[in-house]
Protein backbone atom coordinates (compact mmCIF):
# COMPACT_ATOMS: atom_id res chain seq x y z
CA UNK A 1 0.00 0.00 0.00
CA UNK A 2 2.78 2.39 1.05
CA UNK A 3 4.87 1.42 -1.99
CA UNK A 4 1.85 1.94 -4.21
CA UNK A 5 1.33 5.45 -2.87
CA UNK A 6 4.91 6.37 -3.68
CA UNK A 7 4.57 5.07 -7.23
CA UNK A 8 1.41 7.15 -7.74
CA UNK A 9 3.17 10.23 -6.37
CA UNK A 10 6.10 9.69 -8.76
CA UNK A 11 3.70 9.11 -11.64
CA UNK A 12 1.81 12.36 -10.93
CA UNK A 13 5.08 14.30 -10.92
CA UNK A 14 6.03 12.63 -14.19
CA UNK A 15 2.75 13.79 -15.75
CA UNK A 16 3.34 17.37 -14.57
CA UNK A 17 6.91 17.24 -15.90
CA UNK A 18 5.55 15.90 -19.20
CA UNK A 19 3.20 18.87 -19.54
CA UNK A 20 6.01 21.33 -18.87
CA UNK A 21 8.20 19.57 -21.44
CA UNK A 22 5.38 19.69 -23.98
CA UNK A 23 4.91 23.40 -23.27
CA UNK A 24 8.67 23.92 -23.83
CA UNK A 25 8.51 22.07 -27.13
CA UNK A 26 5.50 24.04 -28.36
CA UNK A 27 7.33 27.25 -27.48
CA UNK A 28 10.62 26.14 -29.05
CA UNK A 29 8.95 25.12 -32.28
CA UNK A 30 7.10 28.45 -32.27
CA UNK A 31 3.75 26.78 -32.83
CA UNK A 32 2.38 29.81 -30.99
CA UNK A 33 4.04 33.19 -31.42
CA UNK A 34 6.54 33.94 -28.60
CA UNK A 35 4.73 37.25 -28.17
CA UNK A 36 1.81 35.33 -26.70
CA UNK A 37 3.41 32.16 -25.38
CA UNK A 38 6.78 32.17 -23.65
CA UNK A 39 8.46 28.88 -22.90
CA UNK A 40 8.68 27.71 -19.29
CA UNK A 41 12.32 28.75 -19.34
CA UNK A 42 11.44 32.38 -20.03
CA UNK A 43 8.52 32.34 -17.57
CA UNK A 44 10.83 30.95 -14.90
CA UNK A 45 13.50 33.54 -15.67
CA UNK A 46 10.90 36.28 -15.39
CA UNK A 47 9.70 34.84 -12.10
CA UNK A 48 13.26 34.91 -10.70
CA UNK A 49 13.83 38.40 -12.04
CA UNK A 50 10.57 39.60 -10.52
CA UNK A 51 11.46 38.27 -7.13
CA UNK A 52 15.06 39.50 -7.15
CA UNK A 53 13.93 43.00 -8.11
CA UNK A 54 11.18 42.82 -5.49
CA UNK A 55 8.41 43.81 -7.94
CA UNK A 56 6.69 40.47 -7.84
CA UNK A 57 7.04 40.24 -4.08
CA UNK A 58 5.08 43.42 -3.52
CA UNK A 59 2.40 42.29 -6.00
CA UNK A 60 2.14 38.88 -4.36
CA UNK A 61 1.84 40.47 -0.93
CA UNK A 62 -0.82 42.83 -2.29
CA UNK A 63 -2.93 39.95 -3.55
CA UNK A 64 -2.41 37.92 -0.40
CA UNK A 65 -3.53 40.90 1.67
CA UNK A 66 -6.70 41.41 -0.37
CA UNK A 67 -7.47 37.72 -0.16
CA UNK A 68 -6.71 37.37 3.55
CA UNK A 69 -8.61 40.45 4.73
CA UNK A 70 -11.64 39.65 2.60
CA UNK A 71 -11.63 36.01 3.63
CA UNK A 72 -11.21 36.78 7.33
CA UNK A 73 -13.97 39.38 7.25
CA UNK A 74 -16.20 36.89 5.42
CA UNK A 75 -15.35 34.16 7.94
CA UNK A 76 -16.11 36.26 11.00
CA UNK A 77 -19.33 37.69 9.59
CA UNK A 78 -20.36 34.41 7.95
CA UNK A 79 -19.93 32.36 11.12
CA UNK A 80 -21.66 34.97 13.30
CA UNK A 81 -24.64 35.45 10.98
CA UNK A 82 -24.79 31.75 10.13
CA UNK A 83 -24.81 30.82 13.82
CA UNK A 84 -27.61 33.28 14.49
CA UNK A 85 -29.76 31.98 11.66
CA UNK A 86 -28.87 28.33 12.09
CA UNK A 87 -29.63 28.12 15.79
CA UNK A 88 -33.15 29.50 15.45
CA UNK A 89 -35.84 27.59 13.63
CA UNK A 90 -38.01 30.64 12.75
CA UNK A 91 -34.97 32.45 11.35
CA UNK A 92 -34.12 29.41 9.26
CA UNK A 93 -37.65 29.18 7.92
CA UNK A 94 -37.99 32.86 7.04
CA UNK A 95 -34.49 33.96 6.11
CA UNK A 96 -32.92 30.90 4.50
CA UNK A 97 -34.99 31.04 1.26
CA UNK A 98 -33.89 34.63 0.58
CA UNK A 99 -30.30 33.56 1.11
CA UNK A 100 -30.69 30.72 -1.34
CA UNK A 101 -31.84 33.33 -3.85
CA UNK A 102 -28.91 35.68 -3.20
CA UNK A 103 -26.25 32.99 -3.15
CA UNK A 104 -26.10 32.08 -6.87
CA UNK A 105 -25.90 35.79 -7.80
CA UNK A 106 -22.59 36.24 -9.62
CA UNK A 107 -20.58 38.47 -7.33
CA UNK A 108 -18.80 40.09 -10.26
CA UNK A 109 -22.17 41.64 -11.04
CA UNK A 110 -22.10 43.70 -7.89
CA UNK A 111 -18.60 45.05 -8.55
CA UNK A 112 -19.92 47.97 -10.65
CA UNK A 113 -22.37 48.73 -7.87
CA UNK A 114 -19.60 48.63 -5.30
CA UNK A 115 -17.36 50.83 -7.48
CA UNK A 116 -20.15 53.35 -7.91
CA UNK A 117 -20.70 53.44 -4.17
CA UNK A 118 -17.14 53.31 -2.87
CA UNK A 119 -14.91 54.23 -5.81
CA UNK A 120 -11.77 52.39 -6.86
CA UNK A 121 -10.63 51.88 -3.30
CA UNK A 122 -9.27 49.14 -1.09
CA UNK A 123 -12.52 49.36 0.87
CA UNK A 124 -14.47 48.51 -2.26
CA UNK A 125 -12.25 45.48 -2.88
CA UNK A 126 -12.60 44.32 0.70
CA UNK A 127 -16.36 44.61 0.49
CA UNK A 128 -16.63 42.73 -2.80
CA UNK A 129 -14.27 39.93 -1.73
CA UNK A 130 -15.98 39.54 1.63
CA UNK A 131 -19.42 39.57 0.01
CA UNK A 132 -18.43 36.86 -2.41
CA UNK A 133 -16.62 34.71 0.13
CA UNK A 134 -19.26 34.94 2.83
CA UNK A 135 -21.78 32.64 1.13
CA UNK A 136 -20.12 29.24 1.39
CA UNK A 137 -19.15 29.98 5.00
CA UNK A 138 -22.54 31.32 6.05
CA UNK A 139 -24.57 28.57 4.42
CA UNK A 140 -22.28 25.87 5.81
CA UNK A 141 -22.54 27.43 9.27
CA UNK A 142 -26.33 27.55 9.06
CA UNK A 143 -26.38 23.91 8.09
CA UNK A 144 -23.91 22.97 10.82
CA UNK A 145 -25.83 24.79 13.54
CA UNK A 146 -29.15 23.35 12.38
CA UNK A 147 -27.74 19.82 12.44
CA UNK A 148 -26.50 19.82 16.06
CA UNK A 149 -27.71 16.67 17.80
CA UNK A 150 -30.79 17.73 19.86
CA UNK A 151 -29.76 15.31 22.59
CA UNK A 152 -26.67 17.43 23.20
CA UNK A 153 -28.87 20.46 23.85
CA UNK A 154 -30.73 18.38 26.44
CA UNK A 155 -27.43 17.43 28.03
CA UNK A 156 -26.57 21.13 28.10
CA UNK A 157 -29.93 21.96 29.70
CA UNK A 158 -29.53 19.30 32.37
CA UNK A 159 -26.08 20.73 33.14
CA UNK A 160 -27.64 24.22 33.24
CA UNK A 161 -24.97 25.52 30.89
CA UNK A 162 -25.11 29.21 29.98
CA UNK A 163 -26.15 30.27 26.49
CA UNK A 164 -22.61 31.29 25.70
CA UNK A 165 -21.22 27.98 26.94
CA UNK A 166 -23.74 26.09 24.80
CA UNK A 167 -22.62 27.99 21.70
CA UNK A 168 -18.90 27.59 22.31
CA UNK A 169 -18.83 24.10 23.82
CA UNK A 170 -21.62 22.36 21.94
CA UNK A 171 -22.89 24.12 18.80
CA UNK A 172 -19.65 25.56 17.41
CA UNK A 173 -17.54 22.40 17.75
CA UNK A 174 -20.42 20.33 16.41
CA UNK A 175 -20.70 22.60 13.37
CA UNK A 176 -16.94 22.94 12.90
CA UNK A 177 -16.60 20.31 10.13
CA UNK A 178 -19.20 22.18 8.06
CA UNK A 179 -17.74 25.59 8.86
CA UNK A 180 -14.20 24.57 7.91
CA UNK A 181 -15.42 23.02 4.65
CA UNK A 182 -17.18 26.31 3.88
CA UNK A 183 -14.03 28.27 4.70
CA UNK A 184 -12.02 26.11 2.31
CA UNK A 185 -14.44 26.84 -0.53
CA UNK A 186 -14.38 30.55 0.30
CA UNK A 187 -10.61 30.66 0.07
CA UNK A 188 -10.81 30.01 -3.68
CA UNK A 189 -13.59 32.55 -4.11
CA UNK A 190 -11.54 35.14 -2.22
CA UNK A 191 -8.53 34.59 -4.51
CA UNK A 192 -10.63 34.89 -7.67
CA UNK A 193 -12.30 38.08 -6.50
CA UNK A 194 -8.98 39.57 -5.36
CA UNK A 195 -7.66 39.21 -8.89
CA UNK A 196 -10.86 40.55 -10.45
CA UNK A 197 -10.88 43.59 -8.17
CA UNK A 198 -7.21 44.30 -8.85
CA UNK A 199 -7.84 44.14 -12.59
CA UNK A 200 -10.96 46.30 -12.52
CA UNK A 201 -9.86 48.83 -9.93
CA UNK A 202 -6.15 48.87 -10.69
CA UNK A 203 -5.26 47.95 -7.13
CA UNK A 204 -1.73 46.78 -6.40
CA UNK A 205 -1.53 43.02 -6.77
CA UNK A 206 -0.91 40.12 -9.13
CA UNK A 207 -4.15 40.78 -11.02
CA UNK A 208 -2.91 44.24 -11.91
CA UNK A 209 0.53 42.83 -12.80
CA UNK A 210 -0.99 40.26 -15.12
CA UNK A 211 -3.16 42.88 -16.82
CA UNK A 212 -0.28 45.33 -17.37
CA UNK A 213 2.02 42.55 -18.61
CA UNK A 214 -0.59 41.43 -21.12
CA UNK A 215 -1.16 44.96 -22.37
CA UNK A 216 2.59 45.45 -22.84
CA UNK A 217 2.97 42.06 -24.55
CA UNK A 218 5.42 40.96 -21.86
CA UNK A 219 4.24 37.38 -22.10
CA UNK A 220 6.95 35.99 -19.83
CA UNK A 221 5.91 38.36 -17.03
CA UNK A 222 2.27 37.54 -17.68
CA UNK A 223 2.93 33.84 -17.27
CA UNK A 224 5.06 34.42 -14.19
CA UNK A 225 2.07 36.15 -12.60
CA UNK A 226 -0.34 33.41 -13.61
CA UNK A 227 1.97 30.72 -12.27
CA UNK A 228 2.32 32.61 -9.00
CA UNK A 229 -1.49 32.85 -8.71
CA UNK A 230 -1.78 29.13 -9.29
CA UNK A 231 0.81 28.44 -6.62
CA UNK A 232 -0.99 30.82 -4.24
CA UNK A 233 -4.27 28.97 -4.72
CA UNK A 234 -2.60 25.61 -4.26
CA UNK A 235 -0.57 26.52 -1.18
CA UNK A 236 -3.45 28.22 0.64
CA UNK A 237 -5.75 25.29 -0.03
CA UNK A 238 -3.15 22.77 1.19
CA UNK A 239 -2.60 24.87 4.32
CA UNK A 240 -6.35 24.93 4.90
CA UNK A 241 -6.57 21.16 4.50
CA UNK A 242 -3.78 20.66 7.01
CA UNK A 243 -5.48 22.98 9.49
CA UNK A 244 -8.74 21.12 8.94
CA UNK A 245 -7.15 17.75 9.54
CA UNK A 246 -5.54 19.03 12.73
CA UNK A 247 -8.69 20.66 14.08
CA UNK A 248 -10.90 17.71 13.19
CA UNK A 249 -8.58 14.96 14.42
CA UNK A 250 -11.49 13.63 16.50
CA UNK A 251 -13.38 12.81 13.31
CA UNK A 252 -10.72 10.38 12.14
CA UNK A 253 -11.72 8.00 14.93
CA UNK A 254 -15.34 8.04 13.80
CA UNK A 255 -14.73 6.78 10.31
Amino acid at each position, binding site marked *: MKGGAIIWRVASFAVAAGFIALWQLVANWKLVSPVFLPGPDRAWASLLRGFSSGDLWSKLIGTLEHMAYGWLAASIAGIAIGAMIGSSRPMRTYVAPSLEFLRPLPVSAIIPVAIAAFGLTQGMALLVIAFGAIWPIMLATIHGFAAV*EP*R*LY*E*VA*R*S*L*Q*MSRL*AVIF*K*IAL*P*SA*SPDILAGMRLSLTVALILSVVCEILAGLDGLGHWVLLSARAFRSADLFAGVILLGVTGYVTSVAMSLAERRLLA*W*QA*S*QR
Partner: protein
Amino acid sequence: MAIAAKRQEASVSPLAAPQLAFADATLALGGKTIIENLNLGVRPGEFLCIVGASGCGKTTALRLAAGLYQPTSGAVTFDGQPMLQPRREIAIVFQDYGKALLPWRTAAGNVSLALEAGGISVTERPARIDALLRKVGLPGHAEKYPAEMSGGMQQRLQIARCLAQEPKALLMDEPFGALDAMTRQGLQDEVLSLVAASNATVIFVTHDLDEAIYLGDRVVGLLPHPGRIGIELAVNLPRPRDQLATREHPEFLRLRRQLFDFIKATEQ
Protein backbone atom coordinates in the same frame (compact mmCIF):
# COMPACT_ATOMS: atom_id res chain seq x y z
CA MET B 1 -21.38 -2.72 52.35
CA ALA B 2 -22.12 -0.67 55.45
CA ILE B 3 -23.17 2.13 53.14
CA ALA B 4 -25.48 -0.14 51.23
CA ALA B 5 -27.17 -1.28 54.42
CA LYS B 6 -27.70 2.31 55.56
CA ARG B 7 -29.11 3.20 52.19
CA GLN B 8 -31.62 0.43 52.33
CA GLU B 9 -32.79 1.48 55.77
CA ALA B 10 -33.36 4.99 54.50
CA SER B 11 -35.31 3.77 51.53
CA VAL B 12 -37.40 1.37 53.53
CA SER B 13 -38.79 4.09 55.77
CA PRO B 14 -42.24 4.83 54.36
CA LEU B 15 -42.57 8.01 56.38
CA ALA B 16 -39.83 9.96 54.65
CA ALA B 17 -41.22 12.84 52.58
CA PRO B 18 -40.83 12.24 48.86
CA GLN B 19 -37.84 13.93 47.26
CA LEU B 20 -39.29 13.78 43.79
CA ALA B 21 -43.06 13.84 43.44
CA PHE B 22 -45.62 13.80 40.65
CA ALA B 23 -48.84 15.43 41.87
CA ASP B 24 -51.72 14.85 39.45
CA ALA B 25 -49.25 15.42 36.65
CA THR B 26 -50.81 15.37 33.19
CA LEU B 27 -48.96 15.93 29.96
CA ALA B 28 -50.55 16.43 26.56
CA LEU B 29 -48.39 16.80 23.48
CA GLY B 30 -49.97 17.77 20.18
CA GLY B 31 -53.48 17.27 21.50
CA LYS B 32 -52.72 13.77 22.71
CA THR B 33 -52.63 12.94 26.41
CA ILE B 34 -49.45 11.01 27.06
CA ILE B 35 -49.53 10.98 30.86
CA GLU B 36 -52.71 11.38 32.88
CA ASN B 37 -53.03 12.26 36.56
CA LEU B 38 -49.80 10.66 37.59
CA ASN B 39 -49.34 10.56 41.36
CA LEU B 40 -46.04 9.17 42.46
CA GLY B 41 -43.54 10.00 45.17
CA VAL B 42 -39.93 8.87 45.21
CA ARG B 43 -38.28 8.90 48.63
CA PRO B 44 -34.71 10.10 49.12
CA GLY B 45 -32.32 7.29 48.35
CA GLU B 46 -35.00 5.09 46.84
CA PHE B 47 -34.36 3.07 43.67
CA LEU B 48 -37.60 3.20 41.72
CA CYS B 49 -38.04 1.29 38.50
CA ILE B 50 -40.71 2.13 35.92
CA VAL B 51 -41.77 -0.56 33.48
CA GLY B 52 -44.48 -0.82 30.87
CA ALA B 53 -45.24 -1.80 27.31
CA SER B 54 -43.65 0.37 24.64
CA GLY B 55 -45.52 3.62 24.13
CA CYS B 56 -46.93 3.69 27.67
CA GLY B 57 -45.21 6.98 28.48
CA LYS B 58 -42.45 5.77 30.77
CA THR B 59 -39.77 7.80 29.03
CA THR B 60 -42.13 10.80 29.03
CA ALA B 61 -42.61 10.41 32.78
CA LEU B 62 -38.85 10.46 33.20
CA ARG B 63 -38.54 13.58 31.07
CA LEU B 64 -41.17 15.24 33.25
CA ALA B 65 -39.13 14.33 36.31
CA ALA B 66 -36.05 15.77 34.62
CA GLY B 67 -37.74 19.08 33.90
CA LEU B 68 -37.26 18.58 30.14
CA TYR B 69 -41.06 18.66 29.80
CA GLN B 70 -43.50 20.76 31.79
CA PRO B 71 -46.77 19.13 32.87
CA THR B 72 -49.88 20.48 31.16
CA SER B 73 -51.60 20.36 34.53
CA GLY B 74 -50.59 19.22 37.98
CA ALA B 75 -47.00 19.49 39.15
CA VAL B 76 -43.68 17.75 39.42
CA THR B 77 -41.68 18.77 42.46
CA PHE B 78 -38.15 18.14 43.65
CA ASP B 79 -37.38 18.78 47.33
CA GLY B 80 -40.77 20.45 47.50
CA GLN B 81 -40.07 22.90 44.66
CA PRO B 82 -41.69 22.71 41.24
CA MET B 83 -39.37 21.54 38.45
CA LEU B 84 -39.60 24.44 36.03
CA GLN B 85 -36.39 23.53 34.22
CA PRO B 86 -33.68 20.87 34.41
CA ARG B 87 -31.24 21.22 37.30
CA ARG B 88 -27.67 20.17 37.79
CA GLU B 89 -28.51 18.14 40.90
CA ILE B 90 -30.66 15.84 38.77
CA ALA B 91 -28.56 13.91 36.28
CA ILE B 92 -30.00 12.13 33.26
CA VAL B 93 -28.48 9.00 31.72
CA PHE B 94 -29.84 8.75 28.18
CA GLN B 95 -30.28 5.47 26.37
CA ASP B 96 -28.53 6.68 23.22
CA TYR B 97 -25.08 7.24 24.74
CA GLY B 98 -23.70 7.72 21.23
CA LYS B 99 -25.72 10.91 20.84
CA ALA B 100 -25.39 12.15 24.40
CA LEU B 101 -21.57 12.25 24.37
CA LEU B 102 -19.54 14.96 22.63
CA PRO B 103 -17.68 13.15 19.82
CA TRP B 104 -15.05 15.90 19.64
CA ARG B 105 -14.07 15.54 23.28
CA THR B 106 -12.08 12.68 24.77
CA ALA B 107 -13.46 10.65 27.67
CA ALA B 108 -11.75 13.05 30.06
CA GLY B 109 -13.17 16.02 28.14
CA ASN B 110 -16.69 14.64 28.30
CA VAL B 111 -16.50 14.27 32.07
CA SER B 112 -14.94 17.70 32.24
CA LEU B 113 -18.02 19.23 30.58
CA ALA B 114 -20.06 18.55 33.71
CA LEU B 115 -17.28 19.85 35.96
CA GLU B 116 -16.99 23.03 33.87
CA ALA B 117 -20.74 23.54 34.11
CA GLY B 118 -20.49 23.03 37.86
CA GLY B 119 -17.84 25.71 38.18
CA ILE B 120 -15.07 23.36 39.32
CA SER B 121 -11.71 25.12 38.93
CA VAL B 122 -9.27 24.05 36.22
CA THR B 123 -6.73 22.89 38.77
CA GLU B 124 -9.21 20.64 40.52
CA ARG B 125 -10.60 18.98 37.38
CA PRO B 126 -7.87 16.43 36.45
CA ALA B 127 -7.98 14.70 39.84
CA ARG B 128 -11.78 14.57 39.79
CA ILE B 129 -11.88 13.25 36.22
CA ASP B 130 -9.34 10.62 37.13
CA ALA B 131 -11.34 9.48 40.15
CA LEU B 132 -14.63 9.40 38.20
CA LEU B 133 -13.22 7.39 35.30
CA ARG B 134 -11.70 4.97 37.81
CA LYS B 135 -15.06 4.69 39.56
CA VAL B 136 -16.89 3.60 36.41
CA GLY B 137 -14.13 1.23 35.37
CA LEU B 138 -12.53 3.33 32.66
CA PRO B 139 -9.08 4.09 34.05
CA GLY B 140 -6.54 4.40 31.26
CA HIS B 141 -9.14 5.41 28.68
CA ALA B 142 -9.09 9.14 29.48
CA GLU B 143 -7.59 10.16 26.15
CA LYS B 144 -9.88 8.04 23.97
CA TYR B 145 -12.65 9.56 21.90
CA PRO B 146 -16.14 8.05 22.36
CA ALA B 147 -16.02 6.60 18.85
CA GLU B 148 -12.99 4.57 19.90
CA MET B 149 -14.92 2.96 22.76
CA SER B 150 -17.40 0.07 22.87
CA GLY B 151 -21.08 0.70 23.65
CA GLY B 152 -20.66 -0.46 27.23
CA MET B 153 -17.68 1.83 27.73
CA GLN B 154 -19.55 4.78 26.25
CA GLN B 155 -22.45 4.21 28.61
CA ARG B 156 -20.00 4.02 31.53
CA LEU B 157 -18.58 7.30 30.35
CA GLN B 158 -22.01 8.90 30.30
CA ILE B 159 -22.60 7.62 33.83
CA ALA B 160 -19.25 9.11 34.88
CA ARG B 161 -20.32 12.47 33.47
CA CYS B 162 -23.60 12.23 35.37
CA LEU B 163 -21.76 11.38 38.60
CA ALA B 164 -19.57 14.44 37.98
CA GLN B 165 -22.72 16.51 38.52
CA GLU B 166 -22.79 15.09 42.07
CA PRO B 167 -26.49 14.49 41.60
CA LYS B 168 -29.07 14.06 44.32
CA ALA B 169 -31.16 12.14 41.83
CA LEU B 170 -30.20 10.01 38.87
CA LEU B 171 -32.75 9.52 36.09
CA MET B 172 -31.92 6.60 33.83
CA ASP B 173 -33.80 6.03 30.59
CA GLU B 174 -33.34 2.41 29.47
CA PRO B 175 -29.61 2.91 29.90
CA PHE B 176 -28.68 -0.67 29.07
CA GLY B 177 -31.30 -1.26 26.38
CA ALA B 178 -28.77 -1.24 23.56
CA LEU B 179 -26.17 -3.41 25.26
CA ASP B 180 -25.56 -7.15 25.11
CA ALA B 181 -26.64 -9.37 28.02
CA MET B 182 -23.23 -9.84 29.64
CA THR B 183 -22.31 -6.14 29.52
CA ARG B 184 -25.77 -5.36 30.82
CA GLN B 185 -25.46 -7.58 33.92
CA GLY B 186 -22.03 -6.18 34.71
CA LEU B 187 -23.34 -2.63 34.45
CA GLN B 188 -26.41 -3.42 36.57
CA ASP B 189 -24.17 -4.43 39.46
CA GLU B 190 -21.91 -1.44 38.93
CA VAL B 191 -24.84 0.96 38.96
CA LEU B 192 -26.12 -0.63 42.17
CA SER B 193 -22.80 -0.15 43.92
CA LEU B 194 -22.27 3.38 42.54
CA VAL B 195 -25.74 4.40 43.65
CA ALA B 196 -25.25 2.80 47.06
CA ALA B 197 -22.04 4.77 47.49
CA SER B 198 -23.55 8.09 46.38
CA ASN B 199 -26.87 7.67 48.18
CA ALA B 200 -28.65 9.19 45.18
CA THR B 201 -32.34 8.74 44.47
CA VAL B 202 -32.87 6.81 41.26
CA ILE B 203 -35.68 6.54 38.74
CA PHE B 204 -34.82 3.79 36.31
CA VAL B 205 -36.94 3.25 33.21
CA THR B 206 -36.68 -0.14 31.52
CA HIS B 207 -38.73 -2.57 29.50
CA ASP B 208 -36.83 -5.50 31.02
CA LEU B 209 -38.99 -6.74 33.94
CA ASP B 210 -36.20 -8.88 35.44
CA GLU B 211 -33.90 -5.89 35.40
CA ALA B 212 -36.50 -3.75 37.15
CA ILE B 213 -36.99 -6.26 39.98
CA TYR B 214 -33.28 -6.98 40.25
CA LEU B 215 -32.37 -3.31 40.69
CA GLY B 216 -35.34 -1.68 42.36
CA ASP B 217 -36.67 -1.04 45.83
CA ARG B 218 -40.03 -0.56 44.15
CA VAL B 219 -41.36 -1.26 40.67
CA VAL B 220 -44.14 0.77 39.09
CA GLY B 221 -45.89 -0.58 36.00
CA LEU B 222 -47.60 1.91 33.69
CA LEU B 223 -50.76 1.37 31.66
CA PRO B 224 -50.77 2.88 28.16
CA HIS B 225 -53.05 5.42 26.39
CA PRO B 226 -52.87 7.55 28.41
CA GLY B 227 -49.99 6.60 30.67
CA ARG B 228 -51.01 6.01 34.28
CA ILE B 229 -50.00 3.74 37.12
CA GLY B 230 -51.33 0.20 36.79
CA ILE B 231 -49.37 -1.68 39.40
CA GLU B 232 -46.97 -0.86 42.22
CA LEU B 233 -44.78 -3.54 43.79
CA ALA B 234 -42.44 -3.21 46.76
CA VAL B 235 -39.32 -5.32 46.21
CA ASN B 236 -38.24 -6.79 49.52
CA LEU B 237 -35.18 -8.60 48.34
CA PRO B 238 -32.00 -8.54 50.42
CA ARG B 239 -29.19 -6.25 49.36
CA PRO B 240 -26.58 -6.42 48.03
CA ARG B 241 -28.27 -8.12 45.13
CA ASP B 242 -26.55 -11.03 43.44
CA GLN B 243 -27.00 -12.00 39.80
CA LEU B 244 -27.59 -15.67 40.71
CA ALA B 245 -28.98 -15.76 44.24
CA THR B 246 -31.35 -12.81 43.81
CA ARG B 247 -32.73 -14.06 40.51
CA GLU B 248 -33.39 -17.48 42.07
CA HIS B 249 -35.03 -16.04 45.20
CA PRO B 250 -38.68 -17.18 45.56
CA GLU B 251 -39.73 -13.56 46.12
CA PHE B 252 -38.01 -12.55 42.87
CA LEU B 253 -39.88 -15.25 41.00
CA ARG B 254 -43.19 -14.27 42.60
CA LEU B 255 -42.75 -10.60 41.64
CA ARG B 256 -41.62 -11.58 38.19
CA ARG B 257 -44.77 -13.63 37.68
CA GLN B 258 -46.97 -10.82 38.94
CA LEU B 259 -45.30 -8.25 36.69
CA PHE B 260 -45.41 -10.49 33.63
CA ASP B 261 -49.11 -11.11 34.14
CA PHE B 262 -49.66 -7.36 34.44
CA ILE B 263 -47.77 -6.54 31.24
CA LYS B 264 -49.53 -9.32 29.39
CA ALA B 265 -52.90 -7.94 30.46
CA THR B 266 -52.00 -4.42 29.28
CA GLU B 267 -51.05 -5.71 25.87
CA GLN B 268 -54.45 -7.25 25.25
